[in-house]
């Protein structure tokens, strides 16, 4: 573990230097606000952003990703035999990722990297990626990350954690991957580890103190799935929902996807696209039967998955990192903090 000081004057130059060996992703502002995107060669990550509209999950899990290809032309020897689509898995770095987004990637990893199966697309991208986090000095009013197992200075899932100190960044290098990236930038002004850690602790405490929003999840574990599932409050929670997929798409921990084939002439590709449990299509059988045919069932599925099924299945807390994006983006203001509270405090009436 070591600390590095990076003078902001040298920052852009260092970032540019790393472009030789890394493909960069980071926050940039466009007409619709701040987005985490692949950075063009002349674009610097904007290190003073509050939050991006969407999370950083797309760096590893693009909304549309080509996974397999084949030819449908029977004149070709290998027609109709599918092959993995080419992908670029050379080193990439995501600069300025928020600590809760990095934590979210660790949660998503539990889904894509399992004992039985390894999703090669997600895992290869994950292994190619260096996560350079940016601590949050001034958490926003919707940030409730400290009550979800992460926080403004959380190091979980990061290779480097940067703290903004006005004229410089203080970087805590957490892994060999982080070290390699710092070297590629030419950032090597080592800072005193003990002093820096003290500084980090102070800043972390200050940042955490400003967080006023929280969720309580302590009682979720002890309730049965069926009791929560059959609880009477779901119709009220779901009434205003318009069943768009916004909450799932802005969510850093939502990983569900769809698989679709597309053809052009004789070239065929299989894609995977983000999907959403809010859509009736998500579960509709070919026969027309739909096990989650009603809006309430779908809303319940989303919250039950995040706050109960995941908790029971992995024993790693809830599947929410407290970024507050769904609260902010939901067109009808369905607030996961309120739903969580309702679930946590629910007692079945005998």
């Amino acid at each position, binding site marked *: 573990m070591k600390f590095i000081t990076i003078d902001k004057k040298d920052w852009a130059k260092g970032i540019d230097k790393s472009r030789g060996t890394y493909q960069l992703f980071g926050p940039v502002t466009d007409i619709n606000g701040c987005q985490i995107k692949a950075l063009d060669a002349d674009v610097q990550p904007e290190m003073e952003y509050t939050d991006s509209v969407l999370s950083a999950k797309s760096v590893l899990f693009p909304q549309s990703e080509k996974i397999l290809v084949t030819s449908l032309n029977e004149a070709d020897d290998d027609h109709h035999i599918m092959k993995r689509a080419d992908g670029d898995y050379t080193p990439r770095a995501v600069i300025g990722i928020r600590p809760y987004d990095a934590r979210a990637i660790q949660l998503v990893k539990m889904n894509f990297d399992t004992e039985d199966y390894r999703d090669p697309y997600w895992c290869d991208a994950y292994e190619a990626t260096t996560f350079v986090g940016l601590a949050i000095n001034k958490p926003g009013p919707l940030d409730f990350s400290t009550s979800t197992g992460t926080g403004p200075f959380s190091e979980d899932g990061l290779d480097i954690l940067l703290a903004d100190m006005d004229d410089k960044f203080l970087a805590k290098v957490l892994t060999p991957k982080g070290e390699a990236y710092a070297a590629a930038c030419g950032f090597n002004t080592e800072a005193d580890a003990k002093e820096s850690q003290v500084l980090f602790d102070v800043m972390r405490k200050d940042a955490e103190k400003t967080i006023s929003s929280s969720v309580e999840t302590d009682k979720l574990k002890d309730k049965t799935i069926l009791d929560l599932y059959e609880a009477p409050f779901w119709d009220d929670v779901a009434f205003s929902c318009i069943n768009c997929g916004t909450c799932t798409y802005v969510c850093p921990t939502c990983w569900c996807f769809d698989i679709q084939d*597309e053809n*052009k002439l004789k070239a065929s*590709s299989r894609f995977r696209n983000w999907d959403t449990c809010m859509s009736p299509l998500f579960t509709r059988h070919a026969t027309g039967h739909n096990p989650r045919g009603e809006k309430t069932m779908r809303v319940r599925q989303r919250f039950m998955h995040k706050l109960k099924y995941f908790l029971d299945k992995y024993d790693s807390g809830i599947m929410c990192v407290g970024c507050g994006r769904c609260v902010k983006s939901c067109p009808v203001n369905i607030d996961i903090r309120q739903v969580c509270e309702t679930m946590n405090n629910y007692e079945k009436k005998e």
Partner: protein
Amino acid sequence: MGNLLEHMGIEKDRVHFSWISSAEATKFVDVVKEISDKVKALGPNKKFVKDYS
């Protein structure tokens, strides 16, 4: 529909509407000729075309 396509930047001459009876062979030829001339003059369309590469 033609107006909205034009509004989105698809040139007006690429979208044509006509009402031709099965008995109006000459009209059909004329309309098709007119359409192909106009589209040729515009060159290949790159908009609203899916790129699969």
